C-alpha cells in the first residue's frame, strides 16, 4: 500500500513541478534584465528591487527595460533613462555627489569617531586605575605572599 502512495506522490510531484515561465523569449535579454533590474528600486514598494516586485509599475518598467535591451542600448543608457525620470532614488547604489556625500562617508565617519572615542576612554581609564590605586604595605605583602609559589592562604 505504501509504495502505491509513494508512486502517487511522485506522479503528482512531476505534474506541477517545472520552472516559472519566463516573461520574454530571448534568454540573453532575460539575463541582462534580471541583472539590471536587481540594481533598480521599485518606486511603489520601495524596499523591493524592480526584479522582485509584482507592482504594475514594476511590470511596466521591466517591459520598458526589456525593450531597451532589445534595442541594444547599453546599461548606462538604460539607467540614465530611468534616472532622468525617477531620479537617483531608483538606484540602489546612488552616485557619489554633493547631496550623497553624507550617505557614503557617514558610516566611515561614525566608525572612526567611535574608534577614537573608545581609544581615548580606555587610555583615560587606565591612567585613573594606575594613578589612583591606593595600596597599603600590608596589602602589598599579602599580594606577594599569594603570588609566590607553594604558599597557601591560611
Amino acid at each position, binding site marked *: 500500500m505504501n509504495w502505491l502512495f509513494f508512486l502517487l506522490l511522485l506522479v503528482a510531484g512531476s505534474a506541477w513541478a517545472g520552472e516559472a515561465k519566463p516573461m520574454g523569449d530571448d534568454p540573453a535579454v532575460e539575463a541582462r534584465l534580471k541583472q539590471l533590474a536587481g540594481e533598480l528600486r521599485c*518606486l*511603489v514598494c*520601495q524596499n523591493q528591487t524592480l526584479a522582485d516586485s509584482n507592482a*504594475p*509599475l514594476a511590470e*511596466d*518598467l521591466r517591459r*520598458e527595460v526589456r525593450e531597451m535591451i532589445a534595442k541594444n542600448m547599453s546599461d548606462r543608457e538604460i539607467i540614465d533613462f530611468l*534616472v*532622468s*525620470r*525617477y*531620479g537617483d*532614488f531608483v538606484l540602489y547604489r546612488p552616485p557619489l555627489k554633493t547631496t550623497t556625500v553624507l550617505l557614503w562617508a557617514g558610516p566611515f565617519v561614525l566608525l572612526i569617531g567611535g574608534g577614537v572615542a573608545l581609544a581615548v576612554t580606555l587610555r583615560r581609564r587606565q591612567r585613573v586605575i594606575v594613578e589612583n590605586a591606593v595600596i597599603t604595605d600590608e596589602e602589598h605583602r599579602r599580594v606577594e605572599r599569594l603570588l609566590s609559589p607553594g604558599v597557601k592562604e591560611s
Partner: protein
Amino acid sequence: MSRFLLPLTIFAVMVGFLAVGLTLNPREIPSPLIGKAAPAFSLPQLHDDGKTLSLDDMKGQVWLLNFWASWCSGCRTEHPILMDLARSGVAPIYGMDYKDQKHEALAWLDQWGNPYQVVAVDAAGRVGIDYGVYGVPETYVIDKQGVIRYKQIGPLDDETVTKKILPLIQELQAK
C-alpha cells in the same frame, strides 16, 4: 554633570534627526523633471478616440496635467478640488487616464463630474513612465513654454492649491 553633557548632546542631535525624518514622507520622491521640458506625447482622447491630444496643443498657456484613473481612490479624494479649480477657470486642466478601462473611466467621469478640458488615454502607462509617474494621482503644472514647474505626488489638497499651485499659476501667467 559634565560627564553627561556629551551623551546628552549626542542624544539630542539624534532625536533632532529622527524628528525631522518622521515628518518626511518617504513616498514623495523629488522629481528630476522639475524645470525640464515636459515629455512629448500624442495620445487618443477618451471621449473621441478618433482625435488625439498632444503636448503641442497646450503650448502658450499655463496648464495642469492630472494623471488619474477610475480605480484610484486618491483620485476620488482630490476630485472635488479639481472640480473647484475647473470652475474657477484659473488654468485649464488636462486629464491623463492612466492604465484604465475606457468604459470605467467614462462612467467615473459621468458619475462624479468632469473637470478636464480633454482627457487623453495612456492605456499602457508609457507616457506615465516618461513623466516619472509612480502612483496616481499626480499633477503637473506646466508653463507656456512647456516646462514642468511643479509636481504634486498624491492627491491635491486645499492647502497645497491655495499656497503653492494658485500663486505659481499666477506667476507663470504673468510672464
